[in-house]
């Protein structure tokens, strides 16, 4: 914590307690609120994020989710809550280590300390009720932890949250989170009225009594902090001129499904993709859409294919293991040239892996997955806003090219929230009505254009278009064919469509100068962290730029020219690659990370890579360290 300048001591609190409150102005800060599961820390964090967004701050929030539904109370692995990065400017990623934590018990706090998520010496607002717990082991655990934290240099404030809440409610489990929210609003000099409005919105579906109780607790927390805390922060905000929406990546995807005019989403529950379907299940029906929860992942994909085949391009939303199960069906859609949108919200793999953690491990399986040559389009949103628009783009491409389009999101985007400009609906996002006109005499269901591979699709209901779509090799009439020439012709057509799409893409934009000493290349959710680190180097005068790829298959034109402008190129990814310093690793056996492998093979540049699989979002500090190593 390095305040830019001390502003002024605070005036005495209204209740007469005189606390000398020092106010510090900051560029940014990272706040965490953590509790046992079910104590409402997530709601507190989300509300806090919304309040700071309303006040015009840049914000990025990330859910802290335990792997179990109800982990034992007061357990190190059970931390549940939210991490909020507030900035004076737009915030594009979760940032580095945490500056201030509110913890409802010392055990969940230990979990965060041990995973190195807290900044050395950070401020901790700790519930103090455990000091007087009737259970001796709890008492001693609390005291022991407190001593350790203080000794380790953390600035720990013991807060009687339980006691203070009991002045307002009998069950503090319902409401302590709002007390904490009030404290945070005071700590960050936020407008209490904006906070009240947000609480009313958060509990909008509940009764007036519930809303009023929560506002009362919010005010109590605010007042307590005003009276008792000796610090306060101010982060400048820049007022936005246009409306922003604040959602996580999964909700953005779901809103994209709605906005794209799709009518059916077929899914099977899987972490961390399911929250997209949860939201969609509620919102979709209002515009005549259906979320079909199928009996399994394969059925979900086949169901989507059936609906798409019948004329309504459909989406199926899943995560790694589900994506693996869908492979054969995806191949069928490729072979039959059925438009289909598949969303893969990546998690840690292989196998069950790390369901709640983030990783970019599915790029290769997405591009090369399904047996045989099964060309499909792969796009990877790099921001929460892009999650929204990627679905609209994906449906358009799927229907224009009669292809499978896979959207690769990940747990990082799925559980992070950040504001972006409120989308303004455009009718062009929607598909035209299903063509039910008669097929012209002599037209064939796979009348592949020799140049582009494109063919007009016949939809059931079109008179004269009757044919049997098949997953077998087929000729232009969709007749099963084992003729060598015909198979070659079909393979060519399906592959050419990727080239045809590529011809329509614009070259990607380099972040920074078009030439320099180092080019960092990334894809997907790491965009914000990479660009933040690169920006920092650029401010220091270093000749470093970055390139972020949204279209990964096909890759847009112009990349080779960009690569040629840099002395050294490295990809930074959240997946596996061998460490070249490992004893038995050398150039003959080193396994590169996915994007590096693709770029090396396509452009024949000696592109280096750095990646990690820690399950956590990439931090700008990590990127900084990697860049420094790459430059040395």
């Amino acid at each position: 914590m390095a305040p830019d300048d001390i502003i002024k001591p605070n005036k005495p609190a209204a209740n007469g307690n005189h606390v000398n409150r020092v106010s510090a102005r900051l560029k940014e800060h990272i706040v965490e609120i953590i509790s046992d599961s079910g104590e409402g820390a997530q709601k507190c964090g989300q509300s806090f994020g919304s309040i700071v967004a309303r006040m015009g701050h840049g914000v990025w929030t990330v859910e802290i989710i335990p792997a179990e539904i109800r982990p034992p109370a007061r357990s190190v692995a059970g931390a549940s809550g939210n991490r909020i990065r507030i900035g004076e400017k737009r915030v594009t990623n979760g940032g580095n280590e945490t500056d201030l934590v509110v913890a409802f018990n010392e055990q969940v706090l230990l979990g965060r300390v041990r995973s190195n998520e807290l900044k050395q010496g950070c401020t901790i607002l700790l519930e103090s009720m455990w000091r007087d717990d009737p259970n001796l082991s709890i008492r001693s655990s609390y005291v022991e932890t407190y001593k350790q934290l203080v000794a380790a240099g953390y600035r720990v404030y013991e807060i009687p949250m339980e006691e203070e809440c009991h002045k307002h409610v009998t069950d503090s489990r319902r409401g302590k989170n709002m007390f904490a929210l009030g404290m945070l609003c005071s700590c960050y000099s936020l407008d209490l009225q904006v906070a009240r409005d947000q609480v009313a919105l958060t509990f909008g579906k509940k009764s007036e009594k519930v809303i009023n109780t929560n506002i009362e607790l919010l005010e109590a927390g605010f007042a307590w902090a005003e009276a008792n805390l000796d610090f306060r922060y101010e982060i400048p905000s820049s007022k936005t001129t246009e409306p922003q929406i604040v959602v996580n990546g999964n909700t953005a995807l779901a809103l994209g499904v709605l906005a794209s005019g799709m009518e059916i989403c077929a899914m099977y529950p899987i972490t961390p993709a399911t929250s997209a379907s949860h939201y969609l299940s509620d919102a979709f029906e209002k515009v005549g859409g259906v979320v079909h929860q199928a009996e399994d992942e394969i059925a979900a994909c086949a169901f989507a294919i059936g609906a798409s085949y019948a004329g309504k391009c459909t989406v199926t939303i899943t995560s790694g293991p589900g994506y693996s199960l869908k492979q054969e069906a995806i191949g069928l859609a490729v072979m039959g040239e059925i438009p289909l949108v598949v969303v893969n919200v990546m998690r840690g793999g292989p196998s069950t892996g790390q369901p709640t953690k983030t990783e970019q491990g599915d790029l290769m399986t997405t591009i090369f997955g399904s047996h045989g040559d099964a060309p499909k389009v792969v796009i990877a949103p790099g921001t929460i806003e892009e999650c929204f628009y990627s679905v609209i783009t994906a449906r358009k491409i799927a229907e224009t090219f009669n292809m499978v389009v896979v959207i690769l999101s990940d747990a990082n985007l799925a559980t992070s929230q950040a504001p972006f400009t409120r989308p303004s609906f455009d009718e062009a996002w929607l598909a035209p009505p299903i063509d039910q006109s008669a097929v012209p005499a002599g037209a064939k269901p796979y009348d592949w254009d020799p140049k582009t591979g494109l063919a007009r699709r016949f939809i059931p209901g079109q008179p004269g278009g009757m044919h049997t779509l098949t997953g077998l090799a087929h000729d232009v009439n969709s007749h099963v064919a084992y003729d060598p020439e015909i198979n070659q012709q079909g393979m060519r057509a399906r592959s050419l469509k990727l080239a045809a799409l590529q011809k329509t893409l614009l070259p990607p934009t380099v972040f920074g100068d078009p030439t320099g000493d180092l080019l960092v290349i990334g894809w997907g959710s790491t965009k914000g962290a990479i660009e933040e680190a690169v920006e920092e180097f650029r401010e220091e005068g270093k000749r470093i730029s970055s390139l972020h790829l949204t279209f990964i298959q096909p890759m847009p034109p112009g990349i080779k020219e960009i690569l040629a402008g840099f002395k050294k190129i490295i990809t930074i990814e959240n997946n596996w690659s061998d460490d070249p310093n490992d004893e038995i690793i050398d150039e003959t056996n080193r396994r590169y990370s996915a994007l590096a492998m693709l770029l090396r093979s396509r452009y024949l540049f000696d592109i280096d890579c750095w990646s990690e699989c820690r399950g956590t979002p990439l931090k700008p500090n990590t990127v900084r360290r990697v860049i420094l190593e790459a430059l040395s």
Partner: protein
Amino acid sequence: MKVATQTISASECLLRMYDEHHEIEDYQKGVPRWCTGCGDNAILTAVQRLCRDEGLLPEKTVFVSGIGCSSRLPHYMNTYGFHGIHGRALPVAEGAKLARPDLDVFVNTGDGDCCSIGAAHWIHAVRYNMDLTMMLHDNQIYGLTKKQASPTSPIGTKSNTTPRGSYLEALNPLTVTLGISNVSFVAQVVDWIPEVLYQVISAAFHHKGFSFIRIVQRCPEWLPKQMDPWMHDPQRVLLLHHENGLEISPALAKVYTKMEEHDPANMNRAREIASSDDPIPVGILYRDDDIPCYEDVRHDSRLRTAEMVKNGLNAELDKFTVWPEGATHA
């Protein structure tokens, strides 16, 4: 058949009748490549006859199949067809039907396709109860992959994967189907009584809901004598008839004298009948016309307009919008 709602002139009506009148040849396509004597031929003939008799529009009719001998059937229909992947015919058909309730969707599948690799979908298809007509071509053997035991092969069946005879009791598709929630139509027929085969497929087509027909069929290539004892002895066939079920023609009644008047509403008796494989029951075992169809529950009949999507999207966006100070929420 869907009825046009708008009024049309008499001459146009005549023209349409001409356009929409179809002969059986209009539903035929290509020359089936099944073996001589294969039961699939009888099923194909029956569905082509059904299409003609019902005057189905070829462009509004879809035959969906999986993989196997049975699943080649769509290729011989001059309608829309979907020959997909092994075991997954049902979810494909369900997706098509939910998206387009105006289509008549049939499913052709086999004992390996449905009862083995696609068994999960079979159970859930019964539960969804979508308005689909499903034909299980059950020849008790894997044919296309050249003779392996299937789940419905009787114990002791010698095959390439069970050279000393299969080890397990056969799965009974009828009792399984009758045990699933929302079951609404279950019938069994044999390929060597084409008259009943047609009657049952027709009744299944007219049933609103998921119709499950197990068609016991011969495989002349891999199990050529399997059904001979039943074929050659009419006493080993139990014909089910009822005023709410099938009406047996006098000619047929002279040959198949072993009959039972069975009310398809009687689930308990249906389960008892289903348990027998000798005599083999033929007819409609169970029917319940009152089970809601999934597509009726889920499909939104409102005409979807851009305005509707726009308003819906904006209403949702409102929930997440942070308005700049002074802006109206309009």
